[in-house]
């Protein structure tokens, strides 16, 4: 079996700590490079552009970890996906400030628990991968144009969401009657674009299946004044019915969606976005548009 590409660099002057942390991560199929000094670590980073995460002890007798990580940020400013994880013996204000300045993903306290180590590194790897994908799409002329189009549509939809939320204070019918065909088309266009972009740009971790499809479908229904039954919503997710129904329950439990009785037939219920769900989708679209525009 082919061994996984090492995307993590662990820096610690203590060889036993290096070996143990590598073993912990290795047991979760996360391969690592190791370095016993800042100089070695810089050499590894220069030679290995695949590295996404640098995990470094802050206090080492011959190396100031904070200074080292600051140098990494400066020297590898062209690798904004690099995630820094700090390991420290003790929580302190200085450490917290240093972590913020370095835009560190996380910091871990000794003694490190294997579970925390794996989770922090995995989270950092996922973040790095997402940033790499957005940048690589933006670097490609076609991808960049696509991103800009998606960003424009997302911005327009965020504006529709904002207006709908504003109109939504007790005037549901009025709000719905104000929907234009443009909104429906825009929503469909965006959903299509996001569907295409999701796996190539953002990856599963950012928009997990099938809850994302259902949230998007709920948004489309809300903006175009349609009512969605549980079954229609589940079908829209293109997932097995039992999985989709579980996800609908998750959305309801999470306060993003709610069951509403159908005013025309009380025996039937439909599902719609709650005000919280609406607000979150608006925030998401605005954030998406900002990220896409910044990358393009």
């Amino acid at each position, binding site marked *: 079996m082919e061994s996984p590409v090492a995307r993590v660099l662990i820096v610690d002057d*203590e060889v036993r700590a290096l070996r*143990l942390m590598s073993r912990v991560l290795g047991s979760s199929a996360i391969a690592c490079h190791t370095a016993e000094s800042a100089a070695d670590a810089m050499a590894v980073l220069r030679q290995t552009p695949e590295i996404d995460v640098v995990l470094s002890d802050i*206090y080492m*007798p011959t190396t100031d970890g904070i200074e080292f990580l600051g140098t990494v940020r400066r020297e590898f400013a062209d690798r904004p996906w690099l995630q820094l994880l700090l390991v420290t*013996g003790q929580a302190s204000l*200085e450490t917290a400030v240093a972590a913020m300045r370095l835009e560190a993903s996380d910091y871990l306290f000794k*003694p490190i628990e*294997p579970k925390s180590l794996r989770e922090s590194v995995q989270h950092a790897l996922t973040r790095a991968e997402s940033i790499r994908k957005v940048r690589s799409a933006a670097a490609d002329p076609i991808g960049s144009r696509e991103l800009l189009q998606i960003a424009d549509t997302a911005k327009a939809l965020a504006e529709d969401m904002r207006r709908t939320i504003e109109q939504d204070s007790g005037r549901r019918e009025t709000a719905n009657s104000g929907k234009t065909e443009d909104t429906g088309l825009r929503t469909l266009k965006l959903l299509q674009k996001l569907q295409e972009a999701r796996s190539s740009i953002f990856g599963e971790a950012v928009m997990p299946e099938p809850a994302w499809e259902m949230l998007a479908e709920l948004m489309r229904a809300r903006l175009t004044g349609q009512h969605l039954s549980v079954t229609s919503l589940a079908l829209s997710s293109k997932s097995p019915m039992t999985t989709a129904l579980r996800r609908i329950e998750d959305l309801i439990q999470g306060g993003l969606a709610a069951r509403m009785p159908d005013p025309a037939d009380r025996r039937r219920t439909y599902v719609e976005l709650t005000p919280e769900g609406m607000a979150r989708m608006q925030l998401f679209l605005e954030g998406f548009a900002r990220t896409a525009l910044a990358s393009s």
Partner: protein
Amino acid sequence: MPHGIPDAQIPDIRRLLHDVNDELSIAALQLEMMLEAGSVEAHSRDSLEESLEACRKAADALKQVWILLGTRSPT
């Protein structure tokens, strides 16, 4: 020197505390890995868990000493 330790000695004491914490961290991580492996017998598991608990308590006590000394580097 509110804790009765001469200021000049505090950096050395911090360094020593850091070294002790590093050693404890290595021991704790090693024990965690052995326990995770799941191949230890029940009585050995109890011993390992007790040892791990002792390491964690020692690390907590160290943190208290650090706080008494003040929290300047090394961190």
